[in-house]
């Protein structure tokens, strides 16, 4: 009886693994078959000349260039906003916080990490309305608001990766500079942070990947179907994931749909490279940054 159960468990495990692999393969193959034909300069630049577009002399209307630029700025801005706050909070938690504070903040960041992105998007949306009504008409859902909201979304990742990579430094490294008369801050700046850099950057890569793929937040905070290359922080913008969402529900001809598949491949490429970078730097730390243990 027991033996049968064991055999069954093994059989089911293999079957399930196979099913999972099969699902993933079908998914990828389907995407490649549909997406590869549209791959090329025209996917990105449409009918405009690539060089002119890159020099800012021509505008793209039927390619994904504006969406790519929008996503790039969005990700860059969110990283710039989230990185200092996240790293500083991580340093505080790892190096200064008392055990009670550690627990308290740890729980809070866990909660923040678990909040659905649409809720954070809603927060950003409300914030933009608030700013609009109380400060200046120029505010509204825009690139800056989206980047701010995305920063809130990914701060827990950066905090956690910073905290964990500092905490897992061996005490050897930790006390070297201290024994040489370093102040706490000197120790952090000259020894701990440089040694924890790979962990911190793996967290940063995860954060960037998350920013690049998230659709729910930007859906509420300023992404639009047509905006061209964003001209300022307060302008609306296009973004790759939204483009894919938009095309999926309202493509008007087969060419647009095929562009959608192409955009899927581009986004998939960007995100998987970012995530693989993160795992390459610090595999285990990345797991825990994403899913906490």
């Amino acid at each position, binding site marked *: 009886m027991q033996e049968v159960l064991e055999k069954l468990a093994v059989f089911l495990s293999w079957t399930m693994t196979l099913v999972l692999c099969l699902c993933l393969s079908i998914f990828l193959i389907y995407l490649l078959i549909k997406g590869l034909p549209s791959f090329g300069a025209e996917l990105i630049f449409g009918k405009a000349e690539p060089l002119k577009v890159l020099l800012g002399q021509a505008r793209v209307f039927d390619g994904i260039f504006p969406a790519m630029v929008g996503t790039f700025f969005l990700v860059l801005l969110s990283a710039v906003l989230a990185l200092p706050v996240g790293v500083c909070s991580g340093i505080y938690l790892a190096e200064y916080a*008392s*055990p009670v504070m550690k627990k308290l903040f740890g729980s809070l960041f866990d909660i923040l990490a678990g909040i659905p992105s649409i809720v954070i998007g809603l927060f950003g949306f409300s914030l933009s309305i608030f700013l609009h009504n109380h400060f200046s008409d120029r505010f509204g859902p825009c690139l800056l608001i989206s980047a701010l909201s995305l920063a809130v979304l990914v701060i827990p990742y950066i905090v956690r990766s910073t905290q964990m990579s500092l905490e897992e430094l061996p005490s*050897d*490294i930790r*006390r*070297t*500079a*201290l*024994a*040489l*008369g*370093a*102040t*706490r801050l*000197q120790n952090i700046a*000259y*020894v701990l942070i440089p*040694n924890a850099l790979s962990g911190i950057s793996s967290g940063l890569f995860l954060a960037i990947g998350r920013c690049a793929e998230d659709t729910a937040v930007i859906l509420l905070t300023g992404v639009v179907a047509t905006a061209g290359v964003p001209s300022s922080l307060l302008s609306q913008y296009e973004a790759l994931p939204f483009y894919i969402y938009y095309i999926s529900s309202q493509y008007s001809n087969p060419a647009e749909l095929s562009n959608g598949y192409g955009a899927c491949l581009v986004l998939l490429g960007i995100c998987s490279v970012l995530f693989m970078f993160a795992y390459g730097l610090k595999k285990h730390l990345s797991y825990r940054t994403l899913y906490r243990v």
Partner: protein
Amino acid sequence: METKDKIIVDGVSFFYSSNRVIDNVNAKFKTHTLTAITGPSGQGKSTLLGMFNGMWNDTPGARCTGEIQIRLGGRWVSPLKKEIPMPLLRRKVAMIFQEPNPLPMSIAKNMAFPLKLAGIRDKNIVQEKVQRALEQSFLWKEVKGRLEESALNLSGGQKQRLCIARALVLEPEILLCDEPTSSLDAKAAGVIEELLVSLKSNCTLLVVSHYMDQVRRIGDQVMALEDQGLKRI
């Protein structure tokens, strides 16, 4: 030789969480002597050393009672009461660890690192101090042509001597050594022993070691940490 007291330990106990690690230790260490401390492992020899340069002061769960007095620059200070900023204390009470711990940078940078921490940036002074410290630690001849190489490429014994030199660069009055030879082969250990003895002219040394013969060889005074107490032998 002066025979003034350098360190006075008076009824010191150490607790980690709720465990008593060291119980009511009393001792005196004289200037320009080398005191060797021995004893079975797990009795808190390293812990004891760490109390002299305040290594435990920020560790959650660690607690000391009693009093330690150290005479620095003619003034008595207490590391346990934090009468002096810890970085300043540690510049004068240097420490060497069991595992040589050069930082992942060049030999020259490693040597200049404590000076950088102390805010000394004048190139000439730095160079002069670095050279003197390397000479004191029998390392200058071996490394003078390769100061820009990574410190991690040195042999184990050289690494440990580099760490000693790095500690000496701030001209400490006391040098705490935690099992400085136990990760080295016999030959390298011999060099370190010789080096430590020669340093008595500069500082007061406390050397923790579990090699009884080594302890006898180098110590002016030998103490054993047993059953949580420190006894002279």
